[in-house]
């Protein structure tokens, strides 16, 4: 069945990553009518598959001055507008005996030029402030690195876009681009939820599909040369380090260890892959070997730390237009006005860049959109806080002064995850405060909030919103509880069983490359519960 919806949006944004959500927010804040379409879920692509590092820019200071300067600027902005998604941990760039210590001064100079504050510190002091650091270090530089939760960041942007009137559609995959002669006028979508095709129309269509933007451009009849680069990462079971640890040398494989929420992660490897493999990411044993080997050099404790999962993301590298071979790659922000470039109006592409610069990318794209629509409004995304980021009156430390109220863990966790929006999560009710996910402290109330407010279609989406199933047990106890709650709200029990089976498979995929030790004990237990006792099958209907 085809549905044609007559309403014409000012802007249709394709892609629910940080860039798409950020662009939707910026456009909506400037008064445009916005539709955002995403084929799966927010932050399901490259956005959610990186370090979650709040770069200071120091990593690029020596090799890419422009990126470095962008990063530190955005870093400071995110601390302000997204403090509930950010942890201000600081970072160390350490020099190991095998590294050239003379690089340090070059590094510090380059940081200075880019506007990144650095402080050279004594190795002894480095060991003191970051006890997990490789004790053999011979030099350390402190930089304003931090951590950022890409799921929450993207969701906050989407939420703010919605607050400003944007319409958000997940589970809507672009299957065609509607054109009238040399003008793009809309998109044809497949709604995965109800298995239906629909069309939406807009004055400007923004391709913010990341690496998948290559395909979307093709649908529009233009070509962008993208080279997918796979980056693999490992998640460790708990926070080993308090500060971000980097190697003070030219960027290489697996040389960043980022503490984030309850875990820490090491990455990345970098490998060009064929475009047809971008939906088929897997982490090889070789990747795991490299990550552990290099990770242990940053923090030897990693050798004895449980690994929870491995995953890989795809960086969208864009070939410069004058060099289709891909040898000359632009690592910066790429904004393509297809009217100028290809003679196709109503269609722009925003890609390249990195998570850190999503807001800047959105600003540049929105500036171009506004110019095309003759809207004269300034960007305010750098000043206005994202929802949840307002200064909290009740910091976490105050909550702990009370003796156990029975719900402290879930309340503290919710506050940690949703910032001031946690006020929308009911608490104080014995039932609602019950923990669904015991590892990450996710309560019934938080699940309900996510289901009602945060565009949750399935368990995997719920995980991105709340961390259900992201802890040590990877869903062993909580998956079923959460599935039960989701099922209550959707009233589709049959679907919920498949959803549960899919969730277990999705968790399994990440565990596959690292399943040994406690991991294999745990997965056997999980199998006993779901297959043995419950009799769950991959296809229940």
């Amino acid at each position, binding site marked *: 069945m085809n549905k044609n919806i007559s309403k014409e949006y000012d802007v249709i944004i394709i892609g629910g990553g940080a860039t798409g959500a950020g662009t939707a927010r910026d456009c909506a804040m400037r008064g445009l009518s916005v539709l955002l379409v995403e084929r799966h879920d927010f932050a399901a692509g490259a956005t959610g598959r990186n370090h979650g590092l709040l770069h200071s820019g120091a990593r690029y200071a020596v090799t890419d001055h422009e990126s470095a300067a962008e990063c530190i600027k955005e870093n400071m902005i995110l601390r302000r507008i997204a403090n509930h998604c950010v942890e201000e941990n600081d970072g160390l760039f350490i020099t190991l005996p095998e590294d050239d210590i003379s690089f340090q001064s070059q590094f510090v100079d380059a940081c200075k030029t880019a506007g990144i504050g650095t402080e050279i510190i004594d190795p002894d002091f480095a060991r003191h402030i970051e006890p997990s650091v490789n004790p053999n270090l011979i030099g350390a530089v402190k930089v304003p690195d931090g951590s950022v939760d890409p799921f929450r960041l993207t969701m906050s942007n989407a939420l703010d876009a919605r607050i400003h009137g944007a319409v958000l559609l997940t589970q809507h995959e672009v299957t065609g681009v509607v054109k009238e002669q040399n003008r793009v006028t809309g998109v044809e979508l497949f709604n995965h939820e109800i298995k239906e095709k629909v069309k939406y129309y807009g004055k400007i269509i923004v391709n913010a599909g990341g690496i998948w933007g290559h395909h979307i451009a093709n649908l529009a009849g233009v070509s962008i040369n993208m080279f997918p680069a796979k980056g693999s990462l490992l998640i460790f079971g708990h926070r080993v380090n308090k500060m971000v640890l980097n190697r003070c040398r030219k960027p290489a494989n697996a040389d960043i260890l980022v503490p984030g929420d309850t875990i820490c992660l090491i990455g990345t490897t970098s490998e060009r892959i064929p475009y047809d493999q971008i939906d088929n990411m897997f982490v090889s044993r070789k990747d795991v070997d490299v990550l552990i080997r290099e990770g242990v050099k940053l923090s030897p404790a990693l050798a004895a730390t449980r690994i929870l999962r491995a995953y890989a993301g795809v960086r969208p590298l864009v070939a410069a237009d004058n060099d289709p071979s891909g040898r000359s790659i632009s690592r910066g922000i790429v904004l393509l006005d297809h009217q100028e470039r290809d003679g196709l109006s109503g269609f722009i592409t925003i890609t390249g860049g990195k998570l850190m610069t999503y807001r800047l990318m959105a600003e540049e794209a929105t500036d171009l959109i506004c110019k095309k629509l003759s809207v004269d409004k300034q960007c305010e995304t750098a000043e206005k806080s994202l929802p949840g980021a307002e200064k909290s009156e009740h910091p976490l430390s105050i909550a702990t002064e009370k003796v156990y109220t029975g719900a402290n863990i879930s309340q503290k966790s919710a506050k940690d995850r949703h910032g001031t929006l946690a006020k929308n999560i009911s608490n104080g009710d014995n*039932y609602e405060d019950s923990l669904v996910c015991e590892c990450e402290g996710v309560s019934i109330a938080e699940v309900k909030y996510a289901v009602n407010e945060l565009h949750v279609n399935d368990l995997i989406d719920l995980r991105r919103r709340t961390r259900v199933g992201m802890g040590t047990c990877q869903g062993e106890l909580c998956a079923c509880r959460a599935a039960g709650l989701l099922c209550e709200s959707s009233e589709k029990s049959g679907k919920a069983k498949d959803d549960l089976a899919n969730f277990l498979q999705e968790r*399994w995929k990440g565990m596959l490359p690292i399943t040994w030790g406690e991991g294999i004990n745990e997965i056997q237990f999980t199998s006993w519960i779901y297959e043995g006792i419950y009799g769950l099958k991959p296809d229940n209907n």
Partner: protein
Amino acid sequence: MKFDNIIIGGGLSGLTCGIKLAEQGKKCAIVSSGQSAIHFFSGSFDLLGKMDGQDVKNPLEAIKILPDTHPYQRVGIENISRLVVEAPRLLDRAGLNFFGKADENHFVLTPMGIMKPTWLTIDDFTRFEQNDAFPWKKAVILNFSGFLDFHTLFVQDGLKKYGVDTQIKNFAMKEFEAIRRNPSEMRSTNIAKVFDSGDALDEFAQKVNQLSEGFEVVLLPAVFGLFTKNVALNLKAKVNKPVVLLPAIPPSVPGIRSQILLRKRFEELGGTYFLGDNVEEGTFKNNRLVAVQTNNHGDIKLEADQFVLASGSFYSKGIVATREKLYEPILGLDIDGDTDSEKWLDEKFFNDQPYMHYGVKTDSGFRALKNGKPIENLFVAGSVLGGANALKEGSGAGISLLTSLHVAEQILK
């Protein structure tokens, strides 16, 4: 410390073996590193539930075509036919009443509302004759308000396929307000403790009778009788219509009760159960294991004429996987499993996982192999044996019960 027999592992196979030996007058000890996997017991013991993905009707017949390497084939079909009669009797003597036939599977309802074939079912639970029908047409599914480990909607969905008209009702009772205050502890075992100690059962049964008016059958999570034996039966007597209990997320209430009763039986027969202790190493002499050293007892070694290894699979650390290799962590025995670690796992969670088949190598008499040679007085039983994916074929409990009885017979010969 000297015993006739020492069993490493205090789960279903260790206890079965220990009880059998102690019943024959042997002085036995069991060393168990913590509580066993009986704590996750579903309520039924499977003999052989599935073959090539299909339900097995007659497990005793179907066993005959299993591969030679399968533990059942190694025990021998004749022995199996005899031991399947003995196993429920041994359980019965421990106060555990199981019902079922080895030559005809019955079915139990899982928490997903699916009928699953099985061999023996404990008397708490209901046995069904058919896998495509439910004997009642109107059912009420009851749950304790806020108990997250029982999923009424999944049960309802399952029953819909059998044409059952169901209604879900949640209810609260003041006796559960205390645990309800704790956000993580509304667990089946904690609910069971309330029924164990207080007089909540009468009020509860009344409530069940009220809520089930107009229905033919009541479905409830299995949260009755943790440390006290007859709670489930008492409940059934007090409710004026059939009660069908369904397992909840582990730990399992009937499982823990079973563990306690089996241990009690073993101890009453004079057995010694060392809980929370680990065997750290063995002393071998001329292909015999003469003593084991444990963490708690240190230089006071535990000596025995025969030893049984019933230490379980990966979950129980009977077998350990590191990045590169598999090993048997207690005595360094030979492992039957792929040396190439990339072959341990299948990329689909629900596929037949190769690692599930792995176990300790033995000779034909279930003697453990170490460096290729059998240890004369060290027998292996239960899921540490390997040779089958017990989860896929529904044979875990059967393998545990029957191999351990068989091994006990070898020792008693």
